[in-house]
């Protein structure tokens, strides 16, 4: 298997994860396809440097984070994207609907956390990536991971509470 084939194979295996990570990083549904391709191009360029004994997801997330961050800096948008998606009019079972609503609220709450802290929280508290891997993937000291995580958790709590309070009937 050539390096390109191995890279393509890895991309295919982690496609669901990559798309979801880009959404968690605030990428609009209409832009996820393009950013995923940029991640692929970057992954391919850096594939020779990737240590294949290490887990791929943190590495991939690190690339996705840098590309999403560059994208945010250029667009400077603060749109809660979830409801810009095409509406799904098909009847959905209750648990599917509930999962969608949970995701919409969580994504909206994540949108309120600055991207560098959000990335740490997503990696550690959603993906379950160990602190050392988070630090390596994002290129920051472990201490910075801890401090960002601490602050991001408070921000997430606060954002969810606000969303719920806003939604509560008066």
């Amino acid at each position, binding site marked *: 298997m050539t390096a390109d084939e191995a890279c393509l194979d890895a991309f295919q295996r982690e496609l669901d994860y990559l798309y979801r990570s880009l959404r968690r990083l605030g990428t609009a549904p209409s832009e996820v396809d393009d950013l995923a391709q940029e991640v692929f*191009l970057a992954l391919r360029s850096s594939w020779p440097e990737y240590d294949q004994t290490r887990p791929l997801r943190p590495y991939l997330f690190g690339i996705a984070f840098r590309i999403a961050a560059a994208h945010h800096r250029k667009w400077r948008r603060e749109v809660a994207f979830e*409801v810009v998606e095409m509406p799904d009019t098909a009847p959905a079972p209750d648990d599917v609907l509930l999962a969608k609503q949970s995701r919409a609220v969580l994504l909206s709450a994540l949108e309120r956390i600055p991207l560098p802290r959000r990335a740490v929280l997503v990696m550690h508290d959603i993906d379950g990536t*160990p602190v050392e891997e988070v630090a390596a993937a994002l*290129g920051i000291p472990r201490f910075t991971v801890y401090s960002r995580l601490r602050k991001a958790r408070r921000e997430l*709590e606060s954002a969810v509470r606000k969303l*719920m309070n806003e939604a509560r009937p008066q």
Partner: protein
Amino acid sequence: MTTEPPYSLEVRALLERERDIPPLSAAQRTRAMARARAALATPAAPMVAPSRATGPRRWIAAAAALVASAGVAAAAFELHGRFWPAKRAPVETSATVELRPASTPKSTTIENEAAPPAVEEPRPAAIPAPPARSKAEASRAELRLLREARAAVARGDFAGAMAPLTEHARRFKNGRLVEEREALRVKALAGLGRTEEARRAAGSFRARFPRSVLLPAVSKMSATPRAQTGD
């Protein structure tokens, strides 16, 4: 993960649900892999940043934000009723992090959070650009134009989508994203109410890409333009 995050029950429940990664649709997966395979035909190149929004687009984004907020509020309201029908106890707000022994990070790719990654400034799509110098550069230029068109279509700005689509057709008549461009053109024409042109474009699409994964959507768009474009 070895530490239990000090979250309230509500946030824990949300995070728990988010850990299940929803699978992509077959069409989305096929499209992503087709584009990745096409990219392999070009030499590896450094990553590039996406294009910048222009003034009017920011206004539209702001309007979309208002709509989005309303939608999220509705979802939160629904969730609130389902998950926590009774009055909730105050959520815990203190958050502590348990320190764990960890090894030194293996590599450093970002010096600090303020340091931007190495990206090149994209040129505005509306301004005619000089011919692409390499295949990789052309691929990125194609991506930029199509991204702009797709974003315009997604927010219902069908007139705004026509400029990048026309520019793409001019510069990349037989580019690697021509199939996507033509599908977007059908959608934009249908959205503008130019039904006859949309039908003709859909017919050309069908003839040119008879096995396209986008074909069912293209056929629907041209058949019932307004319903499919969300107007």
